[in-house]
């Protein structure tokens, strides 16, 4: 009783100010982190991309010089192309994962064990995954060459990671292997949200398994498929560890991605200004692709809800 009146009589304004102070104090740490490591870097990148600058040198206005150089830079175009190929591989993983999700969602014994086994590669350290796959692709004693030679698919061992043709597909294979379980979990959640009575009704109406899959499963799974695609795309777009450890961008520039190129420009050639310009192009592309994906998904999701 002694405390309660104090609250009642406290001036309304003071209470309001105190609450506002509390809210901003609570937001402050996160805001500072995001300001320091998201907002300022973005603006700084923009500034650097229009400048001529290296550490310990004064900054000079350079206009669009960096962008012009990029336009004529073959390595940049190669890295861009490789990144797009990397992104384009995401649907392949998603289709495989869909098949696995359908298998695991059937009510067989031990499905949790299968789920665990398929998912386990996802949370692992990508550097270690890269080393594992380097070893599998090894020319002489790598498992993949051994199997291919034992089955007489090839006569000579393939130098997967040293071949201009095979290096990128090899890295992509490792990436799919790591992402597979993750896609599967997302799709599994989506499958579990489809009401089973839809299938029963369709079966009574005489729809066979194939039609049930195309007419019920796929349309209702669209949001999950889309989520997989967006995440797979972002993951491929920002991928660094796997390529850096497996091939280092080589042979030549056969597996160079935009992020590895930015890293090399910045930290082995100390060309911060040019690296910033490449970063800006990288970022604008990312925003564009994400925006397009969101627009597409908006249309799709709306169509599903209307039904």
């Amino acid at each position, binding site marked *: 009783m002694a405390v309660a009146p104090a609250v009642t009589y406290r001036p309304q304004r003071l209470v309001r100010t105190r609450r506002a102070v509390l*809210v901003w104090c609570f937001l402050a740490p996160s805001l500072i982190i995001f300001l320091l490591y998201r907002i300022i870097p973005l603006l700084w990148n923009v500034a650097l991309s229009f400048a001529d600058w290296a550490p310990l040198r004064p900054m000079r206005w350079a206009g669009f010089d960096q962008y012009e150089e990029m336009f004529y830079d073959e390595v940049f175009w190669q890295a861009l192309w490789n990144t797009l190929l990397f992104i384009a591989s995401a649907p392949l993983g998603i289709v495989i994962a869909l098949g696995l999700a359908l298998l695991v969602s059937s009510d067989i014994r031990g499905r949790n064990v299968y789920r665990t086994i398929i998912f386990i590669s996802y949370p692992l350290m990508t550097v270690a995954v890269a080393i594992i796959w380097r070893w*599998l692709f090894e020319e002489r004693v790598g*498992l993949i060459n051994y199997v291919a030679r034992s089955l007489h698919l090839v006569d000579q061992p393939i130098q997967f990671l040293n071949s201009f043709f095979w290096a990128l597909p090899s890295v992509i294979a490792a990436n799919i292997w790591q992402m597979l379980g993750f896609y599967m979990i997302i799709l599994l959640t989506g499958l579990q949200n489809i009401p089973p009575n839809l299938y029963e009704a369709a079966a009574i109406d005489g729809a066979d398994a194939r039609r049930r899959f195309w007419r019920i499963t796929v349309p209702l799974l669209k949001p999950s498929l889309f989520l997989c695609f967006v995440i797979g795309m972002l993951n491929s777009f920002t991928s660094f560890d796997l390529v850096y450890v497996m091939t280092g961008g080589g042979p030549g520039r056969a597996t160079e991605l935009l992020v590895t190129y930015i890293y090399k420009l910045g930290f082995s050639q100390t060309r911060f200004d040019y690296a910033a310009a490449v970063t800006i192009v990288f970022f604008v592309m990312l925003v564009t692709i994400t925006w397009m994906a969101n627009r597409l998904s908006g249309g799709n999701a709306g169509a599903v809800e209307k039904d």
Partner: protein
Amino acid sequence: MHRYPRWPIHLALIGVSFLMLIPFYWVLKTSVTGENIFAYPPSILPKSPHPFYYVDVWYYIPFARYFLNSIIVSLLTVAANVVFNAMAGYALTRDFPAKSFVLLLFLSCMMVPFQATIIPAYLITGRLGLLDSYLGLALPQFSTIVCIFVFKASFDAVPRSLIDAARIDGLSEWRIIWQIMMPLAKGAIATNVILAFIWSWNNFLWPLIVTRSADMQTLPLGLARFLSYQEDTTGALYAFCIMVLAPGIVLFLLAQNEFIRGLASGATKG
């Protein structure tokens, strides 16, 4: 309904499981036998396995130091994440002027991937004098927007009447947070701990940029470094690899439901 035979499904899933696990087996085999890279064919079963490569790792590299560095950075990240994200998430459940602006700011920050900030982030960390330090390694990951929203959703689910009742009973704001909100947000805390730990533990790009001395390297850096300077220590490299992976796998198997839920929710909103 269930007339179809089960064995084809089992067969397919066993095949896939085999493909998912065989890479681990191949590395494990190499870590206990080594491999003569000039001998073909490689043996499928380990011939005379021995644990000596695991001993070698301790001599070749400061494994304990790397491990300790990784632990320190991850603990810093996890602790800061839970505290800061819970605070920000709680603030976002309240009404205050400029709230929509703050929300917009957070959502747009989510669009900036860390990979697009590495050059200025390095320069900023340099200005702060934090290069090559634990704080510098952990700082960019001190708060994550995904987890702020996980906390916000969790706090929003607490019934308003419960908070009002506590306030009428004269509980201070701090006690409301600590004694009512946090215990009800256990799920959010678990998700945040798991996500922050995984992101920090597996992080490679940022430590690669900010560390200079060998003393500050974390496990992923140590692995990549070891790969680049060894030639004939094949067995030891894979022993090191297994030593790095084993704790993660054990942790995952112990709390796999929390892991899967956390990772799925983190990605859903990321």
